[in-house]
């Protein structure tokens, strides 16, 4: 009788270990997804940096005397690159770059010859897609954070989360400075 009880207890213990292992792995997977989504945002931001020189060169041929606008874009780009990992400086630099590019397109509207060129159309499409990709990368990050936060907070994973140190992550929100409308310099 004792023997069968021991076997039963052993089986129960093994099942418990397996269950805990599966739950823990789920939490680990979710946290890793959040981290990789965060890194992906950086990838898209860098893509925008790489696109800017091409854009400036295409526009320069047509807008030779809009030097100020073109210079602003190039300068904003180098600032964004040099900001590096410093988060507040980086985010404000990226914002400046977005504003400068938008400004460039606003000015380009006044040159119908430039607007109609196939090259400019394609390039505008490339920039649209870059902005979209950044937005979607942030959206994906937020989705992953939602997934992780829900898992960490719900039973039975919340017991494990406290034990093994899984904390809910912060969502990507627009900061107050982001919400300010950038001034168009004409």
């Amino acid at each position, binding site marked *: 009788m004792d023997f069968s009880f021991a076997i039963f207890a052993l089986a129960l213990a093994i099942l418990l270990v397996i269950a805990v292992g599966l739950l823990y792995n789920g939490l680990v997977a979710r946290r890793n997804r959040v981290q990789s989504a965060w890194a992906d945002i950086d990838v898209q931001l860098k893509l925008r940096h790489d696109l800017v020189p091409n854009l400036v060169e295409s526009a320069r041929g047509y807008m030779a005397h809009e030097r100020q606008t073109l210079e602003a874009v190039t300068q904003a780009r180098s600032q964004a690159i040099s900001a590096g990992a410093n988060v507040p400086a980086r985010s404000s630099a990226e914002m400046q770059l977005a504003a400068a590019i938008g400004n460039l397109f606003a000015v380009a509207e006044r040159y119908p010859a430039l607007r109609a060129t*196939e090259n400019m159309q394609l390039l505008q499409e490339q920039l649209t897609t870059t902005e979209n990709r950044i937005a979607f990368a942030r*959206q*994906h990050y937020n989705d992953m954070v939602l997934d992780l936060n829900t898992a960490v907070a719900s039973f039975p994973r919340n017991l494990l989360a406290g034990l093994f140190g899984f904390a809910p992550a912060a969502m990507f929100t627009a900061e107050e400075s982001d919400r300010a409308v950038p001034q168009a310099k004409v």
Partner: protein
Amino acid sequence: MSSEPALSSSVGPRDRESFFAAQQKNRHATWRMTALCVLTALAMGIPLTLVLTPLFYAGTLLTADVVSYFNPLPPEFWATMKELATLAVRVGDYFFNNKPLDPQLLAVGLAVLLVPGMLIALALWMAMLALFRRAGVGGAMASLNAREPSPHDLHELQLANVVQEMAIASGLPAPRVMLVDSAGANAAAIGTSPADARIVISRRLLDDLDRDQMQALLAHLIGSVGNGDLGIAFAVTSVFETCGLLGTIINAPFGPHARSTLWRVVRYAFSRGGSGTTAEADGIAALLTGDLDLQSDDIDRFFDTGSHRGPVHKFLAFVFFPIFFTNAAIKFTLWFFLTAFLGPCMALLWRSRRYLADASAVQFTRNPNALAGALRNLTEDSTAIPGGVWASHLFVVSPSQDTSAPQDKPTAEQMRLVARAWAESAPAQPARSSLTTGDYMRCCAELIATQRAAVSGDPTALARMTAFHRTISTLVPGPIAQSLPDPADLTAALRGDPAAIARLRSQQQNLGRHHQTVQKRTGFQAESMVAFHPPLKRRLQRLERMGAHVDWGAKQKWSSTKIIGTTIGFLILAPFILAAGALMLVVVAVMIMLNLLFLALWLFAIHSLFGLLAPH
């Protein structure tokens, strides 16, 4: 708030659901539907095994007779066979004459009767899964005239970018995009797994949808890939393929068409793979499921007594006569259960996956209006894509059958024309006088191979394709000839030549104005009473619950008389429908009984023949 609530019946906050909730609902629905499918498959297996098992035992007995003619088998073997036979008879007695039977014996008897057939069906299914796993689904669409989007065209660049954006939003690797220059506007996801998925999209779609709608459509496709729909599509397809293989094997002694199909299957099984594998897999699958129809000219030709067949043929006809009955029984059983039970179950399962993909699209784009607009635009167009008719369930919207384009099953006259034109286009082959179905199949295979060679730059292949095109334009006059694109243009387009691409597009656009589409179910959706694609209205309703603004037009209010009339109509019809279903079941049972009877008589005759011929 609105001061005229009667005018617009908009969806209020209580009717809303978030796309996450919609996704969860659809995932639960998938589990329910899968359970239903499994149960139905098991239920369908019973009549099928009742037909297969006697065949199996007949085959064993026949082989035993032949073997013992040359080398007598031990008497224990015959004793065991006799025991099995008496057991089967007793089980039959228990069911039909209510004679009592020991439950253990009953279990053994049932096992003996049902298990061999089940094992055969299961083995065939496993073989189909293993055979086609490499190729996945939808390969035929990718082989002909599919090209990469060129970065010099604005719309195609937008397409490539939108695919990348959706890949980022979903966290999946971006699938390869293949553009097809066809008159229809549709898109499908093909492949085996998210890692090697491809998206086939028609060029016309890029012109008809704007950027947001294209984004929503691709979100739907990528979402369905990420949800594992490719694996589910593969499983659904394999069930139909197994049924088709069963029918083809039974047909094999009778007709060259079935034999050539089987030969292709065997050749494919041993091939090393390569560029043509996926298309070949699709071609085989189409042939296999084509045999599921109730008519088959192979068998009719075999048993045609009015022809000038020799005595050997007559003897073979006598030998194989019960197989004719088994064949008819299997075909009828398969057809009935597929169309009435298993087909609809799988269709309902597939529908819940479509809804799930719609909800995933809303999650990725956060823009339900775009998807609603895209679906609306799609269904108003002609949606046929060549090569995709068989795998029609993979498309976003059900592809209608284009009446003026070359159809999936050409008439005998058309087949002969194509075969003759192909034979004439070959530089040094004499034209044969009579061409059969097998020749047509071979011509198609050669055509595909030559086209592929022409694309990769082989000049003789290109010359042959041009000659073929010229011959067929003269043989087949009228709009059909105009719908065939110039092979030189095709090969140039596949290499990325923008002028050729533009020429093809204008040709297809001109054709698009003359096309009349027939809303007929294509592919193996025709084998099911319930369509695999959810109706547009229901998809739009679900999107509306997720926040889309759908303009329904004038909402028809059902008057009470109409409601009462419809209810009475259903009440009257329902018993008839049930009676028809019961009648079908009775017919299936009768066919199985007749099959058993004929098989038993035939076996008895052959067995006693061998008994007479035995040396002792």
